[in-house]
């Protein structure tokens, strides 16, 4: 199949090899390390369910990075938007007899509006989207903590977290997927995530908007000469990213804990970058790369117990090394191609 990206797969394998050799520095056996890393997710139904929960949030955050990336924008704002939207979902969910429609609509709306801040700065002030997004990440994290701790703190808990959402929207407790996986964090949001990937594929490849986004990403000034409004593209791609960030918040609050727990996101927004790069931006590929990264993330969380000298922080190292080795592999792939071209020519 010509669609399979060999550079990404090569980068993944090389990255994992580098990571397992690196554990030698910490007196750990690479074989044992790989066993823990790869063997953790199928230990029990619950472990699988937890991994599939990671898959769900990673698909969403991967899409939130990859769509703006197609238009040449670096969306580093997902992390802050995840926290903001999760807070909104938890807060709106507190009111008695609230229904799903209200919670979901409001959360998605806040996701979109929060992304407009970045879009407006980019479109009207030509500020670098990375800087604005980084500032907003700090602000949204502070805002979410402030609202939850000061107004919605769970009175029955010592932990910093909100009270549970109203019983009318606790339906995901009976979610067939959740029940099958022994009450694990996974929920039917996994299906929505997969459907979203397919929809994004259709958007990117079969619609006018998709073509416009790609054209703008390839060459913004040429696209503008062809009548594509740069402001429209910026707002469009970042709004979509906002929707997917909001879905991460919904997955956590409605599908998993039913509350806002401070610090729930293990930098899911940044994991999305790894996912999107590994898939080379392909929306269907994102489903697979999410699974790979979810398995590694799940495995790394067992390193605390299963190894003497490593901690779950090694998950970050693995992500970093994979990003770097995929980057290098893409370069080698293109230079090898050029080499063969020269041979032929």
């Amino acid at each position, binding site marked *: 199949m010509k669609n399979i990206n060999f550079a990404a797969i090569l980068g993944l394998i090389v990255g994992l090899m580098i990571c397992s050799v690196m554990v030698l520095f910490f007196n750990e056996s690479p074989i044992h390390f790989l066993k823990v890393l790869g063997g953790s997710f199928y230990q029990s139904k619950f472990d699988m369910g937890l991994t599939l929960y990671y898959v769900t949030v990673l698909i969403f955050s991967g899409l939130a990075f990859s769509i703006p990336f197609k238009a040449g924008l670096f969306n580093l704002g997902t992390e802050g938007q995840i926290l903001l939207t999760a807070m909104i979902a938890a807060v709106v969910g507190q009111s008695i007899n609230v229904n799903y429609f209200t919670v979901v609509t409001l959360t998605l709306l806040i996701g979109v509006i929060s992304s407009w801040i970045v879009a407006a700065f980019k479109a009207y002030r030509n*500020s*670098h989207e990375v*800087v604005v997004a980084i500032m*907003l990440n700090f602000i949204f994290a502070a805002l979410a903590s402030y609202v939850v701790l000061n107004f919605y703190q769970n009175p029955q808990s010592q932990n910093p977290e909100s009270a549970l959402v109203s019983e009318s929207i606790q339906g995901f407790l009976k979610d067939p997927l959740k029940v099958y996986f022994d009450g694990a964090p996974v929920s039917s949001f996994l299906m929505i995530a997969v459907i979203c990937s397919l929809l994004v594929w259709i958007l990117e490849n079969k619609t006018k908007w998709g073509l416009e986004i790609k054209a703008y990403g390839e060459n913004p000034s040429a696209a503008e000469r062809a009548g594509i409004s740069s402001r429209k593209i910026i707002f469009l791609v970042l709004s979509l990213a906002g929707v997917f960030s909001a879905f991460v918040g919904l997955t956590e609050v409605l599908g998993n804990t039913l509350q806002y727990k401070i610090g729930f996101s293990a930098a899911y927004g940044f994991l999305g970058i790894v996912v999107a790069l590994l898939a080379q931006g392909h929306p269907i590929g994102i489903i697979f790369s999410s699974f790979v990264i979810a398995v590694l993330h799940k495995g790394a969380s067992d390193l605390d117990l299963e190894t003497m000298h490593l901690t779950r*922080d090694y998950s970050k*190292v693995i992500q970093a090394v994979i990003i770097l080795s995929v980057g290098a592999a893409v*370069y*080698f792939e293109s230079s090898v191609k050029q080499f063969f071209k020269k041979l032929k020519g």
Partner: protein
Amino acid sequence: MIDIILSTLRLSLPVLLAASGGYFTEKTGIAQISLEAYLLTGAFTAATVSYFSHSVVWGYVIAIVLGVLVSQLFSLLVLKLKANAIVVGTALNLLVMGVIPIISKNIFDSTGSTPSLNIDNAGIMAQIYPYVLTAALLGLSYFLAERSRWGLEIKFAGQNSDVLQSVGVNPTKVRWMAITFSAAMTSVGGAILSTYLASSYSPMMSAGRGFIALAAVIFAGWRLGRAWLVVVFFALTEALQIYIQSLQLSFKIPNELIQSMPYLITLLVLVFYKNKSSAPRFVEY
């Protein structure tokens, strides 16, 4: 009043160095979002080496060496293997944030902090050296940026690298030197953070200062002197924040609001500020 000024100066030291570091890389047309990584590397290395060698000087030296080594990875990927600078910068931040807790677990059996240093910070010399060092390094950066041939080469690398090639200067080499210099400066900032502002390394102690430094550079329109002013201004808001928290006010200002002040102010200024032509042209290798 004097308290606030002194604490402003104190707090601005690491960020001044990080902003100068960020300036050099950014000015050559390479986006630099891994200042955080160099700050953390410098802070952890300085605290660890000082703890074992009982000498802060060695802490600084090894911090610079390690910071420069980490930056070589950045240069290799961005300049040689043509990877995207923001992607590599993100990866570098993740890498450093992941490696440090594991190393500290193995050396100190802690969850990320180093033991407290037994440095005598009371002497007048110990109080003054970070200021002297920072002033010297800022002077050096200013000289390199504005008065040296290399400074001019850096500006051309960011504006129009064809000019450099036509006079026989390799823009990639200019960028590599700038990235390396950035890392060295920022690592010193990190070292000051853990050995002077605190007396040990604690997890994530840079607390976004690398991003603040980057914001300051961009905010200042990629001009070094102005970037320093912005940093001092940020430090002033931070000093005020600490001061306000120490007051027993009758009304309560939320902590989170005060802590997000620098970020809110950044955005507010960006509202009134349209990116001008002094921005380097960011290159895609």
